[in-house]
C-alpha cells in the first residue's frame, strides 16, 4: 500500500460516518423536522454496536443493534415532537444529552475491551484495479451502504411518490394535511430513517473507524453532520461532496501532525469545527442555492387545526 492509497483510505473512513449521519438527517429535515439529537443517536449507535458485536462476536449483529438503537432513540424524539408537540430544538438537545450520558453508562464496562472489526468486502475484479481498486472496491460493507443510501435517497426525491410526499410535508404541512396526508406519520418515518442512519454512523465509528469503545467518541460528528445538511442545501448529492470535503479536512489535521507541521496540535484538532463555521457562512450568503430546497416548515411544530 503506497502513501496516497493510505491517505485516500483514511479520508474515506473519516467521511463515511459523516455521510451516513448527514443523509439520514437530510431526509428528516426534508420532512420539516430538525432533529438536533444526531450526536446522541450516533454515540448510542456506537456503544450498542460495540457492545453487541463484542458480546456475540459478530460485527453484523453489532450493526443491527446500532440501527435498532438509532431508531429507538429517534422514535423517542418523534413521540415527543410529533405526538406531544414538544419543541424540536429542546427535544433534540435532550436526545443528545441523554445519549451521551447513557452511552457513557453502558460503555463503562466495555472500555478498553477488544472490538470486532467489520471486515472488508472485496468486489471481484474491481478490487484488483490499481489505486482505485483497493481504495474504492475493497471497503467494508458500510462504506458501500453509505454510497448506496445516498444514491437511493437522491433517486427517491427525484423520482418517487414517497419523495414527493416528504418534500410536500416539509414544504407546507397545512396544505399536506388539507390534502389528507398524515403529516405526523410521514414525519415519524423520516425521523426513524434519520435515526437508523445515525445509528449506522455510530456503528461505523466503533466497528471500523476505531474498533473499540471510547467515551464520547462521536466527538461532535453528529453536529458536523447537521451543519453538512445546511451546507449541502438539502441536496443528497451535495451532502456526499460535503461529507468527503469534511472528511478530508479531518484527516489533513492528523496528517499535518504526523509529518510534524509546526502548529499546535490543538489548533489542528479544532480545524474541523472552524471549517464547519466557515462552511455555514459560505452557504448562508448564497440565496439562490437555498431557494427551492429549504424545507419551509423546518423546526415548526404542527398540530392540525379542526
Amino acid at each position, binding site marked *: 500500500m503506497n502513501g496516497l492509497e493510505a491517505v485516500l483510505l483514511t479520508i474515506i473512513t473519516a467521511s463515511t460516518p459523516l455521510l451516513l449521519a448527514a443523509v439520514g438527517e437530510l431526509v428528516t429535515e426534508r420532512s420539516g423536522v430538525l432533529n438536533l439529537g444526531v450526536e446522541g443517536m450516533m454515540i448510542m449507535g456506537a456503544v450498542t454496536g460495540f457492545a453487541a458485536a463484542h458480546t456475540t462476536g459478530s460485527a453484523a449483529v453489532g450493526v443491527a443493534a446500532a440501527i435498532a438503537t438509532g431508531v429507538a432513540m429517534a422514535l423517542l424524539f418523534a413521540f415527543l415532537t410529533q405526538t*406531544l408537540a414538544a*419543541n424540536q430544538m429542546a427535544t433534540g438537545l435532550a436526545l443528545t444529552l441523554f445519549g451521551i450520558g447513557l452511552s457513557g*453508562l453502558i460503555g463503562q464496562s466495555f472500555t478498553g475491551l477488544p472490538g470486532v472489526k467489520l471486515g472488508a468486502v472485496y468486489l471481484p475484479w474491481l478490487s484488483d484495479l490499481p489505486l482505485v481498486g483497493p481504495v474504492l472496491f475493497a471497503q467494508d460493507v458500510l462504506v458501500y451502504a453509505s454510497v448506496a443510501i445516498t444514491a437511493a435517497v437522491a433517486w427517491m426525491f427525484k423520482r418517487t411518490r414517497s419523495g414527493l410526499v416528504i418534500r410536500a410535508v416539509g414544504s407546507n404541512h397545512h396544505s399536506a394535511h388539507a390534502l389528507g396526508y398524515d403529516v405526523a406519520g410521514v414525519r415519524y418515518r423520516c425521523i426513524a430513517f434519520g435515526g437508523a442512519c445515525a445509528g449506522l454512523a455510530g456503528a461505523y465509528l466503533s466497528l471500523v473507524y476505531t474498533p473499540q469503545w471510547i467515551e464520547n467518541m462521536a466527538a461532535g460528528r453528529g*453536529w458536523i453532520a447537521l451543519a453538512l445538511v445546511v451546507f449541502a442545501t438539502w441536496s443528497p448529492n451535495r451532502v456526499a461532496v460535503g461529507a468527503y470535503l469534511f472528511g478530508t479536512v479531518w484527516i489533513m489535521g492528523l496528517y499535518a501532525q504526523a509529518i510534524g507541521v509546526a502548529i499546535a496540535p490543538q489548533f489542528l484538532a479544532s480545524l474541523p469545527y472552524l471549517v464547519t463555521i466557515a462552511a455555514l457562512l459560505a452557504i448562508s450568503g448564497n440565496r439562490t442555492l437555498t431557494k427551492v430546497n429549504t424545507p419551509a416548515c423546518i423546526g415548526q411544530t404542527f398540530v392540525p387545526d379542526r
Partner: protein
Amino acid sequence: MRLVLEKRPERNRWMQVASPLLAVTLTVLFGCILFAVRGIDPLHAIYVYFIGPLTTLWSIEELIVKATPLVLIGAGLAICFRADLWNIGAEGQLIAGALAGGSIPILAPHWDSSLAIPAMLLLGMLGGMAWAAVPALLRNRFGANEILTSLMLVYVAQYLLDWLVRGPWRDPQGFNFPKSISFNDWHLLATFGDGRVHLGAVFALVVAAVLAVFMARTLKGFEIRARGEAPRASTFGGFSVPGTTWLCFGISGALAGLAGICEVAGPVGQLQPTISPGYGFTAIIVAFLGRLNPLGALFGGLVLAVCYLGGEAAQVELSISEKTAQVFQGVLLFLILACDTLVRCRVRLERGTQGSSSGQGAAPPLGIEDAGSRAASEGAAR
C-alpha cells in the same frame, strides 16, 4: 386508541407551576425503576441519590457550590431561549470567561490589589460575552444558524484552554502537569462557612432576581419575550431583530463567563484542561426546568446540583456509576418537555375514530374558536 392533543385556549396557569414538579417526580420514579432493574433497593437508592445530599451541612454547602454556575448560566440561557435564540455554546463561553478572567492571576500573579478581583470578574464576563458575540455576529450579519456555530465554538474553546495550560500558561514548577499556577489568595473569591461556598453564590442570587425583574418589568425584557413569541409582531413593535440577538447573546455570554471565572477563582483555583463537568450543557436543562424564568433557574440549578451530588454519593455508597447522573439529566429534560405539553394542551386518549382505518386526514380537534381563521391567516401570509 391514540393520543389526542387539544390546544387550550389559554395556557394553564396552574400547570405552569406544576409541570416542573411533575417532571422531577417522574424522573425520580424513573430512577426507582432503573435501580430496581439493576437489583438495588430503590427506596434506599433514591434516599442516597436525592435526599442524602440535603441532610448534612457539608453536602448542602457543596450543593450551593455546584448550583452556583448552573444558576448563573441557566438564568442567562433562559433569556436566550425565551427570545427563541438557541445559544447552546455556554460551555465554551464559560471557558472563555475563565481564560479571560484567569489571565490576571496567571500573567500578573503579584498584583495584590482590591481591584484585582473586580477586574477578573469583569474580564471574565467580557470573555464570555466575546465568545457569545461570534454566533450573534454570524447570525446577524450572515444569517448563519446560531445553534451550530455556538456549539462548534465549544470545541474550539476547549482546545484553546488545552493549548494554554499545556503551553504558554503551564506552571513552570508543575512537574510538566498540564496546569497553570495555583492562583494566589488575593486572586481567589471570598468564601463563607468553612470555605467552599464563595462569592459566586451571592452573584447567582442577585442575577436571578435582577433578571426576573428585568424580564417582567422592563421594556427590554418585553422586547425579548415578544421576539420569542412572535418575531414579526416584535419587529412591528419597533424592536430590531439584530438588537435583540446582541442583547440576549451578550447577557447569556457574560453570565456564562462570570460562572467560568467564579469556578476557576473559586473551587478550582487554577486553570487545567477540564474546569467544568459540563455545566454549560446542564444549564440548558436548568433553564427549561425553571420554565425559562430566571427565578425558576434557582430551583432548576438546585435540582440539578442534587443530581450531580447524588451521583457522586451513589458511586461511593452503592457503587453505581456517576454516569447515572447524566442519564437522569437527559431523562429529566425529556420529561420537562413532555410535561410542558400539558401547559399548552389537554391530552386525552381517544378510542378508534369513526371509520378511520388509515388515520389519514382524521384531524384531531382543536378546542379554540379562532383556529380556523388562524390557519387561514397563515395561508394568506404566503
